[in-house]
């Protein structure tokens, strides 16, 4: 995770920064948008994307629709999520 601190070549560090910046801008674009999360065992849930933590441990979502009702706010563990998608206008 912290490869950049382990004496990585400068070229690789530059690429790492560029890739990460685009990813973070993507997280910014996802904020507040309805998203569909595919979890393990074929389970899919819908929620409003909130935020992700720095180490890719969990996603914070709002209005998570579950079979038991709508959770106003929730954390989804990244290890349980296979993929998520959202629409941009």
């Amino acid at each position, binding site marked *: 995770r912290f*490869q950049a601190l382990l004496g990585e070549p400068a070229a*690789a560090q530059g690429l790492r920064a560029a890739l990460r910046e685009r990813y973070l801008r993507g997280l910014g674009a996802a904020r507040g948008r309805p998203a569909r999360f595919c979890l393990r065992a074929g389970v899919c849930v819908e929620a409003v994307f909130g935020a992700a933590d720095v180490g890719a441990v969990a996603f914070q979502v709002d209005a998570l629709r579950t079979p038991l009702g709508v959770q106003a706010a929730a954390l989804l563990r990244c290890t349980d999520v296979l993929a998520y998608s*959202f629409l941009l206008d």
Partner: protein
Amino acid sequence: MNDWQRKSPLDWEKYVNKMVKVAAIEKHEYEGWVLTVDPVSASVVLATFLENEKVSISVVLGHAVQEVEILKEGDDEMKQRLSCIFAPEEGKAYSP
């Protein structure tokens, strides 16, 4: 940690701006243009252009990625199109 997560930024960068098919665990498959690969989680961010001029973004988490196959190279026009998707909005010009 899987093989995909062990790759370096130099490896991941080869997939950027290319149309790929991502094979994920539990037999899921995703197709789209690679916008970026998060160097922390190795998650692949894919864009697909829909008919109504909307863009669908799919993020396949690094731990779920099994294999990534390149289907098509992106031309300059596509690279430009992809670079605009998450680009910050231009700052407003302030009058002196």
